[in-house]
């Protein structure tokens, strides 16, 4: 499949050098818009950067596919909740684009508590020829005003981002996902224990559709880790839990969806049971396929594909980095075992991609069952170079080009990535760097 992936440079200004990178620059989410023309990233500093794809040009055909910065804005600011004595980080947890409704673009961005709707729009005219001021801006003598002028003049294109709505005060716990409904009228926001449903135009009211908070918090055994709407059926959504199960709910059945209509769960293999079983089975991401037929879930070591019609076990299970199974103890000690990796489908649902450590990311072709490990790093990938598959060797003799498990860098992790909705272009966030790879052109 995409082993001959061509790497391209993205906007240089955004590739900041590791040495100068601060915590705030770490990318926390990546998302293409529904057409793939735009790509948005959010970072720990609360900023959103929107990239736009270069238009086709005769002079520089290879530039097609290159994404350049279109707009950068501060979406969230750090806040302090005085009632609970709690700091609210500005980190952008998720970005979701809305379907385009006019010449402007809209996206939802969220931190732990507040979802915001942003409008990114272009302006190319400005008012000119004031009546009270002359061309140099000097105030005119009122008695000399004998004619009235009212004019707009073309100017250089300016892209502005304006906050359109702020949806706040509805979440007691940390928001982990947002998902826009196919009715284009509502979206849901999910925290550790509850899911709320919002109308995109109403900010002062939301409806609670799932609440798993036990009456006594000491009885708490499970939290919600992610949730998503079915891409075409407005009444269906799924949410995943820290216990490795996925629940599918039907909003037609009742207003409060506490009773799921399907529960996807794989029985645990008793022979593999260990202290870490529960931690590594926690689902960090759940995604519907574009067709709506399949679900993909990511847990610590695997990525699984489920058929909506089969609840008892996954259709396919792919090992992401099985070689870490023997290292769980040290991964527990350095907290890496709690890392939340995301997973994505390609446009035709035939390939899936998810991240690993050492700036490695994995791709699995569902038809050929081939898989590949690739690396996103500045040292190994020059602009327009071809990505070489990487291999991790487990014990024994290490061959040339292979890397030993013990020398993996666990601080370089690829948690967030995105796949263009129709083409083979992927965006991979490696700490503070964003890499965009695409199929070799010609």
């Amino acid at each position, binding site marked *: 499949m995409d082993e001959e992936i061509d790497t391209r440079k993205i906007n240089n200004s955004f590739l900041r050098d590791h040495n100068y990178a601060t915590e705030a620059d770490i990318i926390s989410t990546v998302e293409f818009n529904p057409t793939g023309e735009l790509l948005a990233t959010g970072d720990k500093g609360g900023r959103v950067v929107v990239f736009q794809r270069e238009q086709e040009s005769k002079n520089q055909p290879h530039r097609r596919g290159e994404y350049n910065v279109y707009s950068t804005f501060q979406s969230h600011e750090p806040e302090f909740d005085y009632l609970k004595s709690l700091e609210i980080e500005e980190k952008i947890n998720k970005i979701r684009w809305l379907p*385009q409704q006019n010449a402007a673009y809209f996206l939802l961005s969220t931190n732990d508590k507040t979802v915001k709707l942003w409008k990114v729009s272009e302006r190319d*005219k400005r008012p000119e020829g004031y009546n009270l001021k002359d061309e140099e801006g000097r105030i005119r003598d009122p008695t000399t005003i004998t004619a*009235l002028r009212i004019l707009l003049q073309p100017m250089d294109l300016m892209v502005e981002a304006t906050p359109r709505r702020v949806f706040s005060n509805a979440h007691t716990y940390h928001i982990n996902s947002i998902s826009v409904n*196919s009715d284009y*009228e509502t979206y849901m926001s999910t925290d550790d224990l509850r899911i709320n449903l919002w109308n995109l135009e109403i900010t002062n009211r939301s409806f609670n559709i799932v609440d798993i908070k036990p009456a006594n918090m000491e009885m708490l055994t499970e939290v919600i880790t992610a949730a998503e709407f079915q891409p075409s059926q407005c*009444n269906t959504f799924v949410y995943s839990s820290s216990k490795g199960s996925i629940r599918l709910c039907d909003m*037609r*059945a009742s*207003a409060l969806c506490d009773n799921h209509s399907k529960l996807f769960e794989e029985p645990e293999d008793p022979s593999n049971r260990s202290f870490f079983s529960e931690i590594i089975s926690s689902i960090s991401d759940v995604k519907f396929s574009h067709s709506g037929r399949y679900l993909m879930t990511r847990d610590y070591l695997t990525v699984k594909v489920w058929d909506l019609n089969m609840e008892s076990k996954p259709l396919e299970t792919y090992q992401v980095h099985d070689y870490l199974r023997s290292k769980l103890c040290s991964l527990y000690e350095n907290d890496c075992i709690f890392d939340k990796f995301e997973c994505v489908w390609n446009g035709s649902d035939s390939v899936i991609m998810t991240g690993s450590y050492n700036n490695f990311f994995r791709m699995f072709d569902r038809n050929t069952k081939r898989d590949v490990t690739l690396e996103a790093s500045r040292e190994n990938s020059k602009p327009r170079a071809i990505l070489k598959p990487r291999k991790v060797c487990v014990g024994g003799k290490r061959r040339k080009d292979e890397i030993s498990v013990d020398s993996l860098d666990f601080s370089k992790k690829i948690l967030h990535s995105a796949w263009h909705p129709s083409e083979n272009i992927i965006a991979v966030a490696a700490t503070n760097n964003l890499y965009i790879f695409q199929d070799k052109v010609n």
Partner: protein
Amino acid sequence: MNQSSFISGADGDDSLYPIAVLIDELRNEDVQLRLNSIKKLSTIALALGVERTRTELLPFLTDTIYDEDEVLLALAEQLGNFTMLVGGPEYVHCLLPPLESLATVEETVVRDKAVESLRKISQEHSPVDLEVHFEPLVKRLASGDWFTSRTSACGLFSVCYPRVSSTVKAEIRQHFRTLCSDDTPMVRRAAASKLGEFAKVLELDYVKSDIISLFTALASDEQDSVRLLAVEACVSIASLLPQEDLETLVMPTLRQAAEDKSWRVRYMVADKFSELQKAVGPEITKNDLVPAFQNLLKDCEAEVRSAAAKKIKEFCENLPEDSRETIIMTHILSCVKELVSDTSQHVKSALASVIMGLSTILGKDNTVEHLLPLFLAQLKDECPEVRLNIISNLDCVNEVIGIRQLSQSLLPAIVELAEDAKWRVRLAIIEYMPLLAGQLGVEFFDEKLNTLCMAWLIDHVYAIREAATCNLMKLVEKFGAEWAQNTIVPKVLGMANDPNYLHRMTTLFCINSLSEACGQDITTKHMLPVVLKMSNDQVANVRFNVAKSLQKIGPVLDSNALQTEVKPVLEKLATDTDMDVKYFAQEAIRVLALA
């Protein structure tokens, strides 16, 4: 002559300046200034004259759609009243370009306002202009790239359809049909919500051939939000069709909606039930809607049950007279009985707000036999809102069977609400006291409720004490001054010696509101001495309230009492050490003109 024209010329020059300010402010950085200026748009247009308004102002406005929503909203509204300012109906089409761009912005309120203004000015177009200018705009919007423009188009078809030629009519129908099957749910929703309105202006044949098929398609749309809007359209369509066509053209869809898999659609059916009932007529109601209504009352989703419960009274009232009682007794009552013990308090409280209304429909005997037990059960409900809803509707029962039947259960319910831990519940019951007093009569009231009313005067929440004083006034208006003198006044005045200064102040507040209702005699003889005595209170708050009370009851007193009793006390308070006491005493002296 010469001189006057010179003056008007100078005036003309001067008057340009304020307009120049307004025009510049249209482009100011400050939103508020822009907003102010846009609200005076007609002044600007007037100053520019019709010609320049058309050639300069309108093109400028067409380009301002980058502005804030509130500015755009004001603009969209203004343009609806702009016809004269562009030169009258002859030139009204000049307003279309700015409104067209406003009809495509993403903010729904702005778009809706632009559509509203477009609908308004469509009436000012001549039939020719409508076809030459307006209809092409509708077409452009209807085939726009973005769904915002297509949703706006949905609201414009019905205003131009009746006034265009038959070829254009055919085009409009075609456009509407296309939008009903648009790719995006927003456009289908907009089309569904305008379906009824559009059907009304269509020729009946086209209603049958076009609208029904669109209606059926929208009512089985995959999106819940579209299907539920089709229910609304059902009302208008059903009222357009002759009775004999309803069964085949509308009822299958309505039946399907009432049993839709999605509770939101069923909720919509329940919510629109009375309108549907009127639209389909008595025969279909008897055969179809009664069982459908029963199902909605038994729905598995509480939201649906409570929407249906709210409609019980209206539904029963609108049943055909000949079979009304039979239908209620055999079909509806059993459902109502179940709802009384529903698991959801929202359902019970929705029921409680209408259930009393059934007694007037069913008459005395049925009420005593069947409804009374239900009222009593609801009066004992654990949820205060349910009890309150029953109590607030006692008047309907009173007319039919008299309230005495209920009093045995009523009293404990009232007492319990009166002592509820939530002050808002206490407040709500206080507000029903005058009504209850009127229905129960003075004897019953004195015996059972009087103590409650007095107890509220010393409630620890101010809002309750305030409501309680107001309540006393209303009671006195009902039962008369003599009753007040015997039962209320002594108790109120007794509180003047209470060790708690808040209670002493309550005495003053009561006097404020009672004096007028009690009249001069009681006020002078009984209340005034107490007020005057309180002017020596050690708490300043009490003293300045004495001054305020004296100001309040002054007009009720005769001038003798004012001069000999009130005046000296106010004069003394006017020299009080406390600033507020001084102020209010002086204020009272001034108002009562005692200086």
